[in-house]
């Protein structure tokens, strides 16, 4: 668990972070969002003491971080950044094993851990272990960066726009992978991004910052439904907010059992989001869709009224 209590950071006369308080619970993915220069990266870097905070207190698992030696603290906290920061003169395997070696793990255990992580992040060992960072694609390099951050199995992971420099398709793929990874590993993650869709898709808790202060925090749905002010509303996409909400709500949430009525031709996958269901309806010019499982078998149906959220009223009419 990470706790920030009225944490402040000044650079000269400028206040980069202004008395912010924030709690990130164990196993939670907290996304810091906001415009450039709002203090989100500074906040992140104060947690592993790459930047020292001037005021307030930061606690990790109840202990103030100032109690730790900076290096010891950072070896306990995973860190992944946009530029990956892989060492160009080291092979992939050596890069990944950096923190375990700093922690003086025996060589055999380091190797074992490196192999485990490469498997976890979909990097075949025989193909990648001896490659150098310059030989990797952007997405592969970022995987290695994440593997390196996870190497010593830290409880906490700090990620500073890790997917910011990637093309949209690679980025989306890695977002899905991070989501799955997080479901399995249950790390405490603080994630800085300015890609709102990324934040909405990944975050358990969304923290909106502006000029060094927290404007609003809560679950993505809470913020989408009740933005605190115009700034939050526009950051979340203005009138597109509704569609963004649809994009993070799974179809199954609004799905109804198959009715005796004729099954619609148009269909949507069970794992899809309401956003995708709406897109199919719009494209097929229909108001009802069959919801199908992986084998294309119908498991329910969804209607436009159901998506918009008048399902209960509709049900009562019958």
């Amino acid at each position, binding site marked *: 668990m990470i706790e920030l209590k009225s944490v402040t950071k000044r650079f000269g006369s400028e206040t980069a972070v202004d008395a912010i308080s924030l709690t990130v619970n164990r196993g939670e993915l907290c996304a810091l969002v906001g415009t450039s220069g709002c203090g989100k990266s500074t906040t992140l870097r104060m947690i592993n003491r790459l930047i020292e905070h001037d005021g307030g207190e930061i606690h990790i698992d109840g202990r103030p971080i100032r109690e730790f030696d900076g290096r010891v*603290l950072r070896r306990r906290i995973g*860190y992944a*950044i946009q*530029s990956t*920061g892989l060492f*160009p*003169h080291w092979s992939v395997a050596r890069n990944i094993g*950096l923190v375990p070696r*700093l922690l003086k793990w025996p060589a055999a255990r380091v190797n074992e851990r490196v192999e485990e992580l490469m498997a976890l992040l979909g990097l075949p060992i025989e193909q990648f272990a001896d490659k150098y960072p310059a030989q990797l694609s952007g997405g592969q390099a970022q995987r290695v960066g994440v593997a390196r951050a996870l190497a010593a199995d830290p409880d906490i992971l700090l990620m500073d726009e890790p997917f910011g420099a990637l093309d949209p398709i690679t980025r989306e793929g890695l977002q899905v992978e991070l989501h799955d990874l997080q479901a399995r590993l249950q790390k405490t993650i603080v994630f800085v991004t300015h890609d709102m869709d990324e934040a909405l898709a990944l975050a358990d808790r969304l923290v909106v910052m502006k000029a060094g202060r927290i404007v609003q925090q809560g679950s993505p749905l809470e913020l989408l439904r009740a933005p605190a002010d115009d700034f939050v509303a526009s950051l979340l996409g203005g009138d597109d907010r509704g569609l963004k909400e649809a994009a993070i709500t799974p179809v199954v949430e609004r799905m109804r059992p198959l009715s005796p009525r004729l099954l619609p031709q148009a269909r949507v996958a069970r794992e899809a989001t309401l956003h995708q269901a709406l897109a199919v309806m719009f494209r097929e010019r229909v108001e009802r869709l069959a919801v199908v499982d992986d084998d294309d078998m119908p498991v329910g149906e969804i209607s436009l009224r159901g998506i918009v959220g008048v399902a209960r009223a509709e049900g009562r009419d019958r």
Partner: protein
Amino acid sequence: MISRCLKRWAVPLAWLVLLLALATGGEWLEPLLRWSEPEARRVLYPQADLLTLLLRHLQVVAIASSLAVVIGVGAAILVTRPAGRDFLPLVAQVASMGQTFPPVAVLALAVPVLGFGTWPIIVALLLYGLLPIVRNTLAGLEGLDPGVEEAARGMGMGAAQRLWQVELPLAAPVILAGIRTSVTVNIATAALGATVGASNLGAPIIAGIVNGNTAYILQGALLIGLLALTVDSFFARLLSGRQ
């Protein structure tokens, strides 16, 4: 394996062979040298001396360059650490001044203090060779990818670990290039030492000037040129082997 190694080092080795041939048994050069100086009684500089002079020459350059590397790289590392950063402009300027100061002038100033012999030329070469080393080490260390440094810190590496495992290995090609320039220039400049009594490959040149014997001058100049080429091509191999 051995043949591949030989192939890689073929160019530097070829220069070395040519250099040694000229230093040990240059009789075959006599007709050529005779042509340059038909009147002189002797055209071949006493051969036994040439090899000794070559070794002395190398020795002087080696001492001066080693000192320049230790001082130059050391100073550049110090002023790129947080504690020494205030001295960065000072060190950069002192190094530049070292090179603007003509080695001849340094020799003239050093002789009264250090006496005749080898030491004045070592001091002159040290000062003269410092700039390329300092400048390249600074460029190499300052030019590192900030993302790499951020990651090194963020992973929990200490200052010494970052220096030895990340910064120096990554800056090494640039630093080596500076050392290469410094050493090559110093091989040529070291000949000046002969004017203040250091015995090195400058000796045949001085003797040639004094006696009006162009053949001596040619031999000294050829040997110095070949030595510089040999050392330079060794460095070239070393640098390209790293990439």
